[in-house]
């Protein structure tokens, strides 16, 4: 009998983490700065990711091992797709204060609203 791992889904998280990181870079690169100088890519990513995780968090996933899918899609893909450190970084790396604050406020408030919306969708479906 193999010893039970404390991190049973590390492979799923590692793979999902790579996918989420690549998706974040792709989307952030595709979304350019707006006319005012604010680059909304990270905020958009965070809100989208929060909606998706809110939805996933209340879905009763079918299949043999739902926890495995949550580790892959939730902890892995959506966890690394969304980011908090980019928000902190924007306030110390010379990004304008207005742009940094815009990303932070939209990410946090939009993320919470998005997660609540995702919850609602997931519970209704």
């Amino acid at each position, binding site marked *: 009998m193999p010893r039970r791992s404390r991190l049973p889904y590390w492979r799923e998280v590692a793979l999902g*983490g790579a996918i989420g990181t690549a998706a974040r870079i792709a989307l952030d690169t595709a979304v350019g700065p707006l006319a005012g100088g604010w680059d909304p890519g990270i905020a958009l990513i965070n809100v989208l990711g929060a909606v998706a995780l809110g939805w996933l968090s209340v879905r009763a996933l079918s299949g043999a091992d*739902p926890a495995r899918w949550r580790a892959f899609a939730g902890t892995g893909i959506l966890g690394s797709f969304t980011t908090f450190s980019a928000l902190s*970084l924007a306030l110390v790396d010379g990004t304008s204060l207005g742009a940094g604050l815009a990303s932070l406020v939209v990410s946090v408030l939009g993320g919470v609203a998005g997660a609540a919306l995702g919850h609602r969708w997931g519970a209704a479906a």
Partner: protein
Amino acid sequence: MTPPWWTWALVVVAGSVGSLVRYAVVSLTPSTPRPGSFWSRRVHGVWPTGVLVANTVASFLVGLVAALPPTAAARLVLAVGFGGGLSTLSTLAVDSVSLWRHGRRGAAVANLLVTVVAGLAAALIGAWLGRSIGVGPQPS
């Protein structure tokens, strides 16, 4: 200047490693969600400590990296890759909504405020530390 493809490959690998560290931190702190009750346990009497730790450490790291003079490639790998994978916003938002819906409204709001204040403080401390160890960007 566009970084070469292998830089992006390293960034993705670093994001994967960052995710693994976050998974380990969240799994090994008191907020441990057990398989099968992934989000349900952490809203009853527990605080989402693991995500707070991951976000704060990642913020410190990216602040430090921003103040040190590594190459653009190293900066991408450490900040965008590892820091981006280690930190997360989706779990923060979902945890706060879950806390709120379970009647723990103070904890829901505190989770957001503490994360933001700790993250900004950590980034500032990281940047200050990076500059004060004397290898910060030289004026050119």
